[in-house]
């Protein structure tokens, strides 16, 4: 695995998202209220726009989610699965926290 530093923990407030550029991929990184960090693809599969990181973080029936700011479909932060369309899923990326920084691996 090839881990890359994305930002320091303080750059990612709770229940917020930021976008990152990792090996030419655009990645959306989120931090939940339970202080877990997730990384998904940043491109909204429904519109093709790179906006997922700007969605609202919350939960649906306890599952942590982000909703696309474009047309509001919700995606599971854990699996990338779209909760409004079983056939759509966002890619997920391995993410970890080390020494107060956040790192993502691409391959």
């Amino acid at each position, binding site marked *: 695995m090839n881990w*890359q*530093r*994305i*930002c320091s923990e303080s*750059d*990612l*407030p*709770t*229940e*917020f998202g*930021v*976008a*990152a*550029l*990792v090996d*030419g991929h*655009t990645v959306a*990184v989120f931090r*939940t*209220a339970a202080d877990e960090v997730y990384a998904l693809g940043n*491109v909204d*599969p*429904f*519109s*093709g*726009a*790179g*906006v997922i990181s*700007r*969605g*609202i*973080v*919350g*939960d*649906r*029936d*306890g599952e*942590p*989610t982000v*909703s696309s*700011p*474009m*047309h*509001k*479909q*919700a995606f599971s932060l854990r699996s990338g699965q*779209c909760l*409004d*369309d079983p*056939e*759509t899923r966002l890619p997920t990326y391995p993410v970890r926290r080390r020494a107060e920084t956040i790192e993502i691996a691409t391959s």
Partner: protein
Amino acid sequence: MNRTLVVIGHGMVGHRLVEEVRERDPERHWRIVVLGEEPIPAYDRVGLSAYMTEAAAEELVLSGQEVHRDERVRLCTGVGAERVDPQASTVLTTDGESIHYDALVLATGSRPFVPPVEGAELPGCHVYRTLDDLDGIRAASETGAEGVVVGGGLLGLEAADALRELGMRPHVVELAPRLMPVQVDEGGGAVLGRLVGELGIEVHTGAAVDSVHKGPHGGVSAVSLTDGTVIYTDLLVFSAGIRPRDELAESAGLERGQRGGYLVDNGCRTGQPGVWAIGECAAVDGRCHGLVAPGYQMASAVADQLTGRGDTEFGGADEATKLKLVGVDVASFGDAHGRSDGALEVTYANNAAGTYAKLVLDDDASTLLGGVLVGDAETYNTLRPLVGKPLPAAPEQLLFPDAGGGGGTGALPDDATVCSCHNVSKADIAGVISSGRAEDVAAIKSCTKAGTGCGSCVPMLKGLLDEAGVVTSNALCEHFPRSRSELFEIVRATGVESFSELISRYGTGRGCDICKPAVASILAGLSDAHILDDEQATLQDTNDRFLANMQRNGTYSVVPRVPAGEITPDKLITLGQVATEFGLYTKITGGQRVDMFGARVEQLPEIWRRLVDAGFESGHAYGKALRTVKSCVGTDWCRFGVQDSVSMAVRLELRYRGLRAPHKIKAGVSGCARECAEARSKDFGVIATEKGWNLYVGGNGGFAPRHAGLLASDLDDERLVVLLDRFLMFYVRTAERLQRTAGWIESFDSGLEHVRAVVVDDVLGIASDLEEAMARHIADYTDEWAAVLGDGEKLSRFVSFVNAPEAPDPTIEFTEERGQIRPAPIDLPTPAARGREFSSEEVSA
């Protein structure tokens, strides 16, 4: 189309007949000619009083106006019938035209009765029946002056209240010892007299007008009453009863009833073959009916006969009545005076609360015969349909259902008439609910017409929905079991300052894209913190989070505020320079300003720095907030302008800028009645008059266009601003998420009337609180963009990538069209149409 039906009189009942014949005559046997003496087509006479202060004439239009575009119907307005020749079967019009008929229906209504007192013909004496009459009264009215209404019945009280609304000091003179003697008994009359007096209407009962005095200008100057009172006034309104208009009886060879009116049988047939009479001019078996519901029943019976549906007869009248005065509830139904043999009366009077209720029962107290309710007529809707039916519960439980008991719609038998204006039964309504065709009141209205007449049955429609278990849940989303307005009150009362605290105390889970922005808007309405402070930032929709509108390709648009659409050439040049420099697409918006599209997140601060330096500020195009106050040029330039609409629009836009609300708020100010600013299609619209401003509220374009309704008229600048402060704050506090002003107003049982009572008359006593809240908003306003530019922490979020802040997003591409950029088409891995179905209401801005 080989037969001609002539209808004389285009009032409420004549219009209904035309509508019904047309509906039941698909083979088009009938050609219909309607002669209407009034200059405009039939209107809602029942709602006439509203015209005095609020409604424009076009708001009194009756449903079914498409009949006039039907080639089968020829409507002649401003044309009367002069004579009928039954031998030749022709009607001679005041235009001199002779029209042949195969069937003739007289629907000429009534005229007001003016008692034969000296001076009753002087200028200054009016009656209360038509739009023209009301125009005359309004023109003659004078703020602060005395006005006298002769007649203390239903109409007289409406007229007196209208004078009061016009700012006059009304007196009511009634010969009987109490007001509304026909409907109300002695006990009820006493309570009614007090309530009317509290409205500021002076009541003189047991007195009549003795003489009307002529002043030096030839008009009325004073009135003496038989009890010796002299009232100095130059405005008198006679409302002392009505007389059927039966002037055509002689020429048509028709018999009259004993007290006037065309004598007809139970099928509304006169003695002449092929001639009917309906509505107030018809004396059915000798008796005239002065209400609209019996008239509608007659129209329906005659329409049946004309279209070969058999000999339907007039089924007898429901004489139930309800007074339409704000703050004075009076209802009377059935045998209100207990005149039936052996009738028993059950009476409850509460002098402290100012309420009186009486039920009339048959001799063994098992069947309801009628009743009188004064001061609180809430149970009217459930009681009225029970007349003639066995009592479903003890009388006191029917009168006070809240005290526990069998009141409410559940107590009604299936065949009870719920809407008497349109004769719709409980079973009809229950039917559309259970078949799933109606899930709310609006749908019941459109499926059955119930509730679209006088509106008094609307609470019953709600009751029937509740009873059927149609839950209109007001939970915001899965995280909050409460509505936005309830959460607003919770936040206001508890002082909760953050979403986290609110959801942990009053919700479950961690929130979502529905509740987070809604709570953000509530918090914004109650504090002066920046919307991107701390946790607040995480609640915002992307538009608010970046203070710009997101576009289809993930770029943003920039809309600086241009108050009232007024802009200097220098500022226009700045906009052009900024757009050129950053390669933005520019467009003039529908809101009188300029939108610049195609900005990437990381460019927004630089663009705004240039704009703020040039004196621009945020236009809040991204927020559920005040958008624009559109203006026309007004007196500055326009040769028709009567007020300075641009200055007013600038003032209002600057006053309410930044106000966060349940939905966006748009406004307009027009300098005269030509209305070039389209103010009546806005949430609030201000239209100049010779005397000041008329304030309209509840308009919008969009999916369900609405014309704004008149809230108050002829306001001076300061009063206009005060009413607007209250109106907007009341909306911000009590509307639901994504409810624009129109839907919010409609959500009150009495609609605009309720809003007027709160905003103009301050019946809830909250006006000063609302004004203070607005004053705080205005004092705390700062430009959101200027604040971001001075705050390094907030600025740090405006980057394309957290690990490559300057790198443009590779997914954003543009092509060119007509010399400007536009988003390059995107190949989608997933078909765009799939996914959560979202209503367009939910789009972010």
